[in-house]
């Protein structure tokens, strides 16, 4: 499809999947005529009509709950939650119904559906347009959680999500929606969940991140490069499942790791990665894994960039692991 941004890639991929499989339907607030508030569903309503691109009433419970019912009956719904912050009015449907349906019915019923949502801060949106609720999702057995950071990965992961037989929470890095343009292949390709993307090779320190903070992490890696420090950079791409093998292999080889995520620090996904590293490759660690995260405050409006784990905070953490 040529050069494309993440948000263009989403619209393009949804279009391809809707063309391929007429069970795929889209539902959400403003996804129809307006093409979504970020234009992630642009032109699809005009192309596929109101039965396949459904502008819903303003109710996340209705969106997610109805998607469960549609999925049970044979459709392949792709629900959009306008901002990840608005998952909470629909959280009960996500956690109590979507996530547990297969298990509680002994495998008789399941809810193959995708719940897309722009996530993350740095857009001057205050706490209700900036949060990173991934911990809630990975802490809910039955949900898969994906969070790409590039147009290329967005296409492959979204296709996998739509074709997956379980509910997939598909988080999108909203501050990168239009920040990166790259060549996105025309052909149909899927990217397996649980396979990290090695973004840089390096020998002195490993930086692990995912989603929107990949941008800050890569910036930090560039700055390190200028200082003569070579950083290996891993983009997890999916959090459940996550690619333990790749992370452990890199960290075991290099011995030092900094883990970057903008979600609040308490029970951050990176705490899970850190615990895994210490449990599985303690002997290979030359320094304790250090997390660089958002703070344990609601996402603030003022200083919303300072809240993020920006390159400077990442560099400080790198200094720390290198000084061991």
């Amino acid at each position, binding site marked *: 499809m040529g050069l494309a941004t993440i948000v263009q890639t989403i619209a393009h991929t949804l279009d391809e999947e809707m063309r391929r499989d007429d069970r795929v339907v889209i539902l959400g*607030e403003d996804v129809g005529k307006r093409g979504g508030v970020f234009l992630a569903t642009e032109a699809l309503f005009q192309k596929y009509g109101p039965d396949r691109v459904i502008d819903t009433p303003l109710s996340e419970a209705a969106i997610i709950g109805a998607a469960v019912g549609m999925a049970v009956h044979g459709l392949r719904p792709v629900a959009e939650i306008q901002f990840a912050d608005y998952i909470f009015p629909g959280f009960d449907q996500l956690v109590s119904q979507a996530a547990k349906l297969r298990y509680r019915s002994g495998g008789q019923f399941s809810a193959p559906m995708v719940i897309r949502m722009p996530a993350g801060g740095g857009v001057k949106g205050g706490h209700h347009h900036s949060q990173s609720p991934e911990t809630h999702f990975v802490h809910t057995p039955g949900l898969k959680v994906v969070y790409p950071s590039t147009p290329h990965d967005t296409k492959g992961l979204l296709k996998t999500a739509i074709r997956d037989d379980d509910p997939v929470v598909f988080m999108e890095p909203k501050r990168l929606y239009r920040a990166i343009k790259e060549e996105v292949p025309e052909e149909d390709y899927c990217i397996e969940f649980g396979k990290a993307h090695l973004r840089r090779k390096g020998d002195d320190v490993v930086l692990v991140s995912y989603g929107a903070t990949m941008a800050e992490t890569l910036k930090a890696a560039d700055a390190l490069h200028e200082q003569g420090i070579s950083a290996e950079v891993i983009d997890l791409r999916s959090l459940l499942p996550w690619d333990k093998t790749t992370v452990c292999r890199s960290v075991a080889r290099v011995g030092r790791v900094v883990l970057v995520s903008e979600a609040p620090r308490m029970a951050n996904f990176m705490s899970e990665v850190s615990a895994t590293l210490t449990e599985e490759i303690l002997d290979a660690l030359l320094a304790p894994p250090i997390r660089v995260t958002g703070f344990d405050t609601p996402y603030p409006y003022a200083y919303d960039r300072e809240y993020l784990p920006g390159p400077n905070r990442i560099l400080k953490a790198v200094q720390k692991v290198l000084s061991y």
Partner: protein
Amino acid sequence: MIKDSQLFQPFSEKPIRLMGDAGEWLGSFELNLDSDTLLKFYRDMLRARLFDERLLLLHRRGQVSFVAPSAGHEAAQVAVAAALKPKKDWVFPYYREPGLLLALGVPAVELFGQAMATRADPNRGRQMPAHPGSRDFNVFTVASVIASHLPPAVGTAISMKVRNTGEVVVASFGDGATSEGDFHAGLNFAGVQGAPIVFVCQNNRYAISVEYHKQTAAETIASKAEAYGLPGYLVDGMDVLACFFVMREAVARARQGFGPSLVEMQVYRLGPHSSADDDTRYRPVEEVETWKTRDPLARMHRFLAHRGLWSREEDLALRTEIEREFRQAVEDAQRAGAVPLEWMFEDVFAELPDHLREQRRDLL
């Protein structure tokens, strides 16, 4: 329970109107408001309109990151404020209501301070623009999460009843909000409790791009009250007098212990949903133009002129006065200075816990 002595009956087929398009009085009773009150309605509406315009200007200059224009909603908001006892009654607003807050008396400098995250904001710069709140004025700080303020509003009303304080709550929201579970939870509980609350829906026919008939199959929002055992009033929300008289009655009923009601004020959002929206993507320009001819300010202006209470000269003078007030308020808000970085860590809890103390130290 609805008393016979009331001026208005719930569930009317047509919206209640007291002022015609040409500004003529349509009421079946004698208008018993003095000219000061009538002029204050107009003044408050004009302040709301000019406040919006000032914010849009600040937005264009990059000094405010976001605006949710309220043009078209002024009559509804000003009428709500006029029906309340400021600083006694409580208000649970949504994000499109500068007119309500200004009319209640919230100083413009606080609202500009909120929009620019300066120390003039009593909410300490924690929220995005259009999300004010004021403990001083019993204005519950706005949350973006649609309808999430409705159950708390009901709780406050129940507390007023339990503590017998004689206060009333008004909770306001848009048509889109009526689809959220919290709307139903709130109205239902309020009905059961007979709580002193008036729910005000400013139905501007759109929730961003989603038009009314995709939001609900019900003919009116007011009709939804019936299922919760509340009276529901359908009002022309661009008629400040109709909004005021209906609100006054609903508030009095709540205050006297006769329970909650739902008032649907039919308005129209004359601008885009927000500074981030392009409304030409989903609604015809002609529709917007048609609604502009029903501008609530112009109508009230005609009403006042009709009665010899208002002239073009007075209008210009008032505009100039308000513009001057707002320029000063913006300056004062800026002069207060940006909120400091260390405030990020305060107010998460009553006291700063150790882990936040550490995180603050790491950042500063």
